């Protein structure tokens, strides 16, 4: 009985994934204007960023407020590499991934010793220091003027200048990220992350090397932040320190929490929703923010598992009532 319903769940899930993917592939045929495609680009980049953030927050239970700092480092690394040395796009992205991965790993070393609010405030401070240092290092980053005219991606001579090819490139990156996170979660590493989140002492005596796993979680989510940052720089073509503020950290946190932390689909829903909604509700901007804040508060209190958890519950209820 259990295995039967489990296999039926898998069928439903497969149908859902195929439908979502088909919608994502078909989207450029519906969205003709570059403006709408630009929003879709942003959504895809934030899906990568939020999925990586969820490895830290949802899988491992570590609340970092410095993640946008890593995103910024990724964006600046790739932008500087490509604009000042003329390196190819993929080299820039790889450099961004390696550098942020390294920094994520370094951050994790002190983070192993401290927990709870101290970790959150430490990462908050680190994120702000990264942003302020980027603003002050004018010789490298041109300070608060930002870096403009970053070229659109080009891979082996194929240009992604146009909005539609760029959309598919970002979609490919997003799908690869989701696949990666999905494989990660069902591996021994993903289980160890979850175990640390639920009971650190329990994980420890079960034979999980907590320090190594936390470092790995920090490094993985940092690499994904770096890749997302690089993609952001080459998509928007202009970056400045002001964009990578604590406000963006809050939005990232809200994406994961409203979508549903610890799930694969949650950050995807959250990122897509929180990028498109403010654009759709542009004409009521302040009212949107007013509702957005209250929505975060209510979501945390009433939907601890986010929209993904709510969907799961509704799905279960519909199934049991029939």
């Amino acid at each position, binding site marked *: 009985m259990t295995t039967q319903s489990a296999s039926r769940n898998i069928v439903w899930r497969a149908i859902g994934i195929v439908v979502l993917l088909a919608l994502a592939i078909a989207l450029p045929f519906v969205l003709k204007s570059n403006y709408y495609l630009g929003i879709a680009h942003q959504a895809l980049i934030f899906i990568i960023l939020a999925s990586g953030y969820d490895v830290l927050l949802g899988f491992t239970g570590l609340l970092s407020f410095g993640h946008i700092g890593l995103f910024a480092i990724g964006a600046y690394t790739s932008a500087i590499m490509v604009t000042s040395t003329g390196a190819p796009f993929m080299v820039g992205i790889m450099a961004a991934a390696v550098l942020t991965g390294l920094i994520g790993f370094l951050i994790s070393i002190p983070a192993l010793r401290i927990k709870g609010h101290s970790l959150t*405030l430490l990462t908050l*401070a680190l994120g702000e*220091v990264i942003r302020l240092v980027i603003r002050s290092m004018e010789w490298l980053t041109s300070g608060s003027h930002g870096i403009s005219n970053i070229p659109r991606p080009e891979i082996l001579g194929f240009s992604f200048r146009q909005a539609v090819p760029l959309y598919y490139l970002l979609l490919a990156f997003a799908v690869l990220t989701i696949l990666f996170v999905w494989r990660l979660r069902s591996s021994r590493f993903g289980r160890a992350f979850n175990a640390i989140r639920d009971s650190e002492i329990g994980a420890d005596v079960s034979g999980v090397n907590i320090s190594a796993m936390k470092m790995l979680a920090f490094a993985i989510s940092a690499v994904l932040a770096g890749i997302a940052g690089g993609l952001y720089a080459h998509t928007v073509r202009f970056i400045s320190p002001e964009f990578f503020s*604590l406000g963006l950290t809050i939005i990232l946190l809200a994406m994961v929490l409203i979508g549903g932390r610890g799930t694969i689909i949650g950050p995807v829903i959250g990122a897509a929703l929180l990028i498109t909604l403010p654009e759709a509700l542009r004409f009521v901007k302040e009212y949107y923010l*007013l509702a957005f*804040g*209250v929505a*975060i508060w209510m979501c*945390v209190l009433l939907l601890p598992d986010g929209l993904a958890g709510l969907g799961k519950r509704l799905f279960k209820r519909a199934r049991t009532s029939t």
Partner: protein
Amino acid sequence: MDTFLQVLIAGVTMGCIYAFVALGFTLTIAAAGVVNFSYSEWVTYGGFFGVTLYSIVGLPLWAALIGTVILCVIMGYVFQWVVFRPLEGRHFLTIVTATIGISVSMGALATLVWGPYPLTLPTFFGNGTVEFGGISFFPHNVLIIVLAIALISVLQFCLTKTDIGLRLQATAQDPDAARLMGIPVRRMRTFAYCLSAGLAGLSGFLVAPLFVVTTTMGFGLMLKGLAATIVGGWGSLKGAVFGGLIIGIVEALGAAYISSEYKDVIAFLIIIVVLLFRPRGLFPERIAEKL
């Protein structure tokens, strides 16, 4: 030497403001275990209430100050019932995220009500400086320092010598035991929220003439207040005061003698260094362990 003293006065002034913010922030942590990330907006609202009462209603400045504090206390009272009570006893992540949400909403509401343009509030003494013993300073700075000394002394006396203060401390240290002792824990927490909000109003009002009143005014102050609570010791009232002063003075000295460009980095570097080498701050409190 004279410039050093001037820098020091400026540092102590900001330190007093940071101490107020850190105190208000710490009060709800200590009394109810609620880390209130919307505290930045409470401070901002303090500034806006002040501007409204003075410039629009036309009250005299001193009446506007009292009115601001009263309005903020009422706000704290209402908010604790609607917003914060459901959060008490929840996980740190839940509390932080929920209060961040409230902060976003309050910020948006402030923009709707008072508009996106900066507003100003005058000082009690005009804009001139006063010369004294070869150094020149703003009388408003002295007012802030004097008020801080007076207020913190009164608070210190109330918390350690009076009935209500001792009850508040008992609530902070062990709410269950306090409840068994017949202390009205709920009322003590209400008191802490109101006091916290009153301090926010006072900070917002006092800091307004130094800068301008904008919707983001409180945010920077809260970050400094956070730094102060880390340096002083999470959940410690004494730590909040000294932490605030340390941050203010170090920041002023750093800006004057090292680099004004990296001024904002200093507070964050202090957070990082303290967390790495003295994670429980300079004045760790027992109550901090509950968090």
